[in-house]
């Protein structure tokens, strides 16, 4: 039973940041912390963990985020 009054347009899907998965943001933060640690204390393993964190953050990210931000976090 199809085709009567056609209704349009999706609501902006889920613009409720409170419900979203916080993983990419945490990982971003951790990555920065570790990279600072690695730089200041000259600990190589810190820097490696930072790289991993930024990768994980990227993999979990929402598409709405900037690719520029991603790239800078990789740095």
């Amino acid at each position, binding site marked *: *039973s*199809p085709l*009567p009054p*056609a*209704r349009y*347009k*999706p*609501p902006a899907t889920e613009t409720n940041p409170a*419900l979203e998965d916080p993983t990419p943001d945490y990982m971003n933060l951790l990555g920065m912390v570790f990279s600072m640690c690695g730089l200041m204390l000259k600990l190589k393993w810190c820097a490696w963990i930072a790289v991993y964190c930024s990768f994980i953050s990227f*993999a979990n990210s929402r598409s709405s985020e900037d690719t520029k931000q991603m790239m800078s976090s990789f740095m």
Partner: protein
Amino acid sequence: MKNLYIFIAVLFIPWSFSLAKYDDFEDGDDIMEYDDNDFAEFEDVSEDTVTESPQRIITTEDDEEEATVELEGQDENQEDFDDADTQEGDTESEPYDDEEFEGYEEKPDASHSKNKDPITIVNVPAHLQNSWESYYMEILMVTGLLAYIMNYIIGKNKNNRLAHAWFNTHRELLESNFALVGDDGTSKEATSTGKLNQENEHIYNLWCSGRVCCEGMLIQLKFLKRQDLLNVLARMMRPASDQVQIKVTMNDEDMDTYVFAVGTRKALVRLQKEMQDLSEFCSDKPKSGAKYGLPDSLAILSEMGEVTEGMMDAKMIHFLTHYADKIDSVQFSDQFSGPKLMQEEGQLTKLPETKKTLLFTFNVPGSGNTSPKDMESLLPLMSMVIYSIDKAKKFRLNREGKQKADKNRARVEENFLKLTHVQRQEAAQSRREEKKRAEKERIMNEEDPEKQRRLEEAALRREQKKLEKKQMKMKQIKVKAM
């Protein structure tokens, strides 16, 4: 921060002490010269030890990862030393003037090696070697990263394939029921894109609209995060499945007022705690559906018995029994507003907005190890959704039920108002104070003294009137009480 600097400074001291040891072997080094000055006491020692074994001069570069040991042909002239210095940059120019040396090239020598034997071949410590072994940490890490990237690509592709398999299976049914299938909200006109909308690597959306009764239907394919290796590893401990979540928004006139849910017991318990409407309107614990022939795995949450009776018709029971393993939860609610919002105290001044909604959550079979073929088994569930839409439109409460429902809703609203009464009072109070303050300011700013006086008088009169009104009210209440 201060502690950090102290810590680093403390680290420097033993490091520089360890450098001093090199004095034994590195006399005349550019760097060692600096150290020689600081640790002059060692210099004597080194000179003595060096003169003992005149045949060999061992130099090491400690900054770079290469260790070279050289014997220099030493002439008595300083010039040779200087030449050697400029050549290598790290040769010594110590007092061996009297002795002649031949230029040997010996095997790399360690910084630890004692100067006792004329020729000792010692292992170079790892950080000075130039072989693969010294980089084992890096190699390990890079391998890990490569593994992660590979998993990302594989997981992303799998999710993509699953999504499109689902869509291909369901496309026909959707297109026959909805005028608009697929819309991402960006185009000016409403035309079917006929495509899934990818939100990120594991969530795909599809908006369908253009059907009687419902405003629209949003389908969310919530896959597992196959693209994230951490998640993959976590799932090995705790299996989970992909989910398909369908949210149908009903038109106001097409659904009566009731709140009802059916699903797995675990899911219902969770929803009852989380969802605003279920927690307010369905006070009882989830009941078993055995009375209607439902399997034990499913339970029912309902606002009132009449709703359950009305909902559980033969076809619905058939759907629920046959596909019980794939059903996580089904929720029909006219007071749907999503999960309970965590708000700070004092902020909640209005009830959240509600919309008449049918919400379905299905589990994809396979519990993580799904293949695109499994998507076909979800097709009957979509039929159930369509059927439910029509059913929700047809089902109307009888008079009794409607009365009960209205009472419930009034009760909930009243509770809410009571809860926020204090906050609303405070808000009103502060608003009144603001008004007064604004008025006073206006009066102060008024330059004309005449006008000022007049405004003040007006304000006074208003205050008096208010006081009188209050007094009247108090009198009335007293009279009524009597």
